[in-house]
């Protein structure tokens, strides 16, 4: 159901480097999975495109009483692979 190029494109969109072996394996397996879930297309629906499921709605809180800046910085940065001067460090984004 999907081609090698599709697998390559998906991996790139998903930001995952995959080996040639994985490429072959995923082409077969993701193809089989997509064939399987395509059974859903036969499910009769009333074409109500409504995605609102009221019971599952988030209850939002007011955006108030923030914590003081820096309260958690040290602890959180300890988990970051690269940091500098109280910031997370990343490679440059713009060339």
């Amino acid at each position, binding site marked *: 159901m999907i081609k090698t190029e599709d697998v390559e494109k998906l991996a790139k969109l998903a930001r995952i480097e*995959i080996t040639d072996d994985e490429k072959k394996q995923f082409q077969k397996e*993701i193809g089989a999975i997509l064939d399987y879930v395509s059974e859903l297309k036969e499910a009769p629906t009333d074409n109500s*495109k409504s995605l609102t499921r009221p019971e*599952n709605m988030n209850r939002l809180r007011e955006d108030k009483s923030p914590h003081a800046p820096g309260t958690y910085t040290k602890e959180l940065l300890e988990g970051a*692979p690269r940091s500098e001067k109280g910031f997370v460090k990343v490679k*440059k984004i713009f060339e």
Partner: protein
Amino acid sequence: MDKEFFKNLTIKKAVNAIKSGDITALELTRYYLNNIKEKNGEINAYLRIFADAEEQAKKIDEKIKSGEDAGALAGIPFAIKDNILIKGKIASASSKILENYKATYDATVIKKLRDEGAVFLGAVNMDEFAMGGSTENSAFGPTKNPHDPKRVPGGSSGGSAAAVAADMALASLGSDTGGSIRQPASFCGEVGLKPTYGRISRSGLIAMASSLDQIGPITKTTEDAEIIFNIIKGEDPLDATTSLGHSVSEPQTNLKKLKIGILNYDKNAVAPEINEMIEKSIEIFKKNGHEISEVALPYLKYSLPCYYIIMPAEVSSNLARLDGVKYGLLKEGENLLEDYLKTRGAGFGKETKRRIMTGTYVLSSGYYDAFYAKAQEVRNLIKKDFENIFKEVDAIIMPTTTGPAFKLGEKIGDPIKMYLEDIFTVSANLSEVPAISIPAGFAERGGSKLPLGLQIIAPHFREDILFSLGKQFENAKIKV
């Protein structure tokens, strides 16, 4: 205290024994730590044992000595699934990408258990990011089923179920996105509860598919599951979907005389012992004064394809945060994009990659309507199925699984085969209703007695029905 005393413990018995001074919390913790030392080499349920387990127990003993209230779980040793955060401890979700990730806060459920005196023994194994039905997708080796180490304990909460089954913890927490508490509980002969969506805070649970994930207990008895449920449930400002504004009304139902629907399922698609187990279960509930009728869920056959679209879609967005920047593994490349590619390529296992990519596909432009939007519509219809049935009956019973625990390696090579494992469990997640798996007899395979599970499903917020039926089933004179 002799070994038999410890083997037959329930939460109530243990707490009473500790509070009355028959045993100390430290003795109880040491009993389980010894069992872990003896058995974990073979079973591989625990990934990490907490160095402060005995310290935690000693604190409980001190509290009791000084006459303080030590809580409803005073000294009860727990195994915690590796995707639930405990401040200062590693929570890896059994993934290489989080292998060294140290939690910076307690999950709400952990806070609640701690406040009631629970002792945390260690973190237990799971399928990577809770994706799988066998625990074989762990980056740290599979867990074995204590009833037959050649077989899987189920998954994804395989470590949680195996730890309780092998007496390496009195109780455990797991998480259930499509059956990940109920199926391993069934395979290991334990009770497993997936509560109503929104009942229990997900704050501090490493997210897999947020509209489906729920934390729940795996225990030896229904009563134990009920005790833990009542402690960890409740609204939480840190999880905006908890309780969802529902005011839970006081149960009006007479729990002694219920209408129970038995699901009309394909008898040829399950092991013969499963059909026998269901027949006997019907008999038990009839003898207890309940009315049994057959019910059908017309959209049940679409629940698996629906689940295997919605779940990977949510997985692909949830796991996007694992990028080697904020926490976890970093594999450096020439530029930022290469950092992402290499980190995620090296950090994720095969099943995780497969699901992220499948999710990426069903959400991508051109396929979104055919897959994701359609799946959301079908999800609503599955939910309606349950709403309609619950106008007629108070609970539905069906098997938890199609058979007993399968062998290691039997299904891991074929994702579809593994996905079909979830046929009886995913619909409760999709429709957000509570469901429990109760030990219900055995099937013999190759000289091993392998446990089976009976699943009971109730309407939203009616866990009380599950607990009542579960206890009646456990106390029934006829045994399955």
